[in-house]
């Protein structure tokens, strides 16, 4: 019986990108400046909706295998470190406010530099996803060293 349960569990884990039963929502608000801001929703079946901060839909589709795998490994790290709900100093004005939610995890981060590592990785993943999938948006470049 236990063996059967394990098989079912293993099977289910392989279905979604990290046994996420609800959608993964990442909401990044604007900062005072030109920081990226967007809303990304990824459903358990790996379909996604990417919108700008005014809720205007920018793109919709399904994560490819590579995206799904990388997201799965990042979310797995977060899942075991989700005791804290708030990161950053709420008194600071003008930083990006970030909301991340999936399953029972719901966190708010005031300023991406205050995000602990697993969340930083998730934001980096989402930023890259946004710049890749929000077509026709100007691409930000960094000043050369």
């Amino acid at each position, binding site marked *: 019986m236990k063996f059967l349960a394990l098989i079912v569990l293993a099977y289910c884990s392989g279905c979604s990108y990290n046994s996420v039963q609800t959608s993964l929502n990442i909401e990044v608000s604007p900062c*005072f*400046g030109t920081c990226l801001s967007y809303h990304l929703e990824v459903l358990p079946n790996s379909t996604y909706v990417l919108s*700008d901060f005014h809720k205007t839909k*920018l793109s919709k589709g399904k994560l490819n295998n590579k995206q799904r795998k990388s997201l799965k490994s990042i979310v797995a790290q977060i899942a075991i470190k989700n005791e804290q709900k708030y990161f950053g100093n709420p008194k*600071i*004005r*003008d930083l990006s406010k970030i909301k991340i939610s999936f399953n029972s995890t719901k966190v708010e981060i005031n300023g991406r530099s205050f995000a602990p590592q697993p969340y930083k990785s998730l934001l980096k993943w989402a930023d890259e996803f946004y710049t890749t999938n929000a077509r026709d948006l*100007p691409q930000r470049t*960094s000043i050369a060293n």
Partner: protein
Amino acid sequence: MPETCHREQVLQIKINIIKLKLTTIALMALILSTSCKKDEYVNLKATISGENVLVGTTEGSSLIYNISLSEELSEDLPINLTIDTSETIKYINEDDYDPIFEYSSDLGRTWKKGTATSVIFPKRTRDLKVRLHTIDDEKLEVHEEFTINFSVEADKQFSISGSINPIKCIVEDNEENMIPTALVIYSVGEDKSFTLLGINRDIYNSYQKSIIDNGLEQAIIDDVIGVTSTGEVGIKTFEALFDAGSGLGGYVYNNSGTGGDEWHMTLNLSWAYYAYDLTTFEQSRQEYNANGAFGYILTHEYGHIMTLNQLNEIDGDVLLPESCTGLYLYEGCFKEASALNRFHTNFYDESIELNEPSHVTDYAQTNIAEDIAESFAYYVGQDDVPASVADSSGALNKVNFVANHASLKDLKEPIQSVANVGLFYNSPIRAYFNRTVDGEKISCTDHKKITHNLKQGMFKLKK
């Protein structure tokens, strides 16, 4: 005659004896010299190698590198050294080390001076220590890095195989440091002096290194002090960052835990030295704050301080939101006559409908605190503000509100006199609010058309 002949014979014999003796001496000398040469050590061939690839120390101490030869040489071998800082952002400054290398062939018991570019591997030795002194100063610096490259002078005399790998060197700064969130943090004294408190050593561009090494440009300090001294509440700490990639302009917060005002301000200097096209994100180098964008950011941040401070704006007696009869934000309960409370009454009541554009910028839509800070920066940044009428846009009404509010209206001229405040914020609202997407001007009071064009314009930029 016979007597004469005899004397000559004796003389000849003596000469022959002397010749024989001289020949014997010469032969003996030759034999001796030959035997000496057989004892002299002659070797000009060896393999050279180094022990380290990474060496670290704390400033004031020495960096020591160990070099070996497989065989002793019979002549001194010159070793060339160069200090290479081209591959690192955290390069060592020339005044942080003594440029003269020293060397020791007796395991460090005695040291001889080389030059800034060479040391000698003495003959008849196999192990050499090379030493470079670092200088202990009282300056806050990054943990500086460089690479030492070793080479053996190409010389027909020697046949040296092998090589010494380049050695990465790290010199850790030993000053007490208060690590800031941004790049550099200063306390701001009552006399408006800036005192460096800490640096972030985790840098990733050369601008950051330059700011840490040389401090802030005086123009930055003058502008920050000038602007934040125009009102009753100033700043206690200031941080600068240089991060073009983040896009962040700056931020402020009140660091007081006791209901006072201890304001902290952080500004991103990349806005001062780079001009951005906010629709394409292309950037170009500019003289300090040439386009006024940095001045605009500074003014916006000061707008926060002037509208969120405890001294004039917050009612310190009201601690709980439910006890507050006016606007309550994270900073506390706003006094009835405070700028933000009046702003809330004028523009945020549910019954009020604002003509488009309702906000001066996109960012002003984030929340009421950003709305008034942006309206304030727009008021300061414009030489003339048209008076609003009943039919005016929400944005113009808000700028006019700032222009007429007691605590804000008088700040415009003093700020303009110390800093270049440009309306850099090329937001879609500013670009399109009274123009069609094709640039055709439309009436400022044709709000229906403005709203339509605004949406078109924003879509054009944001699709």
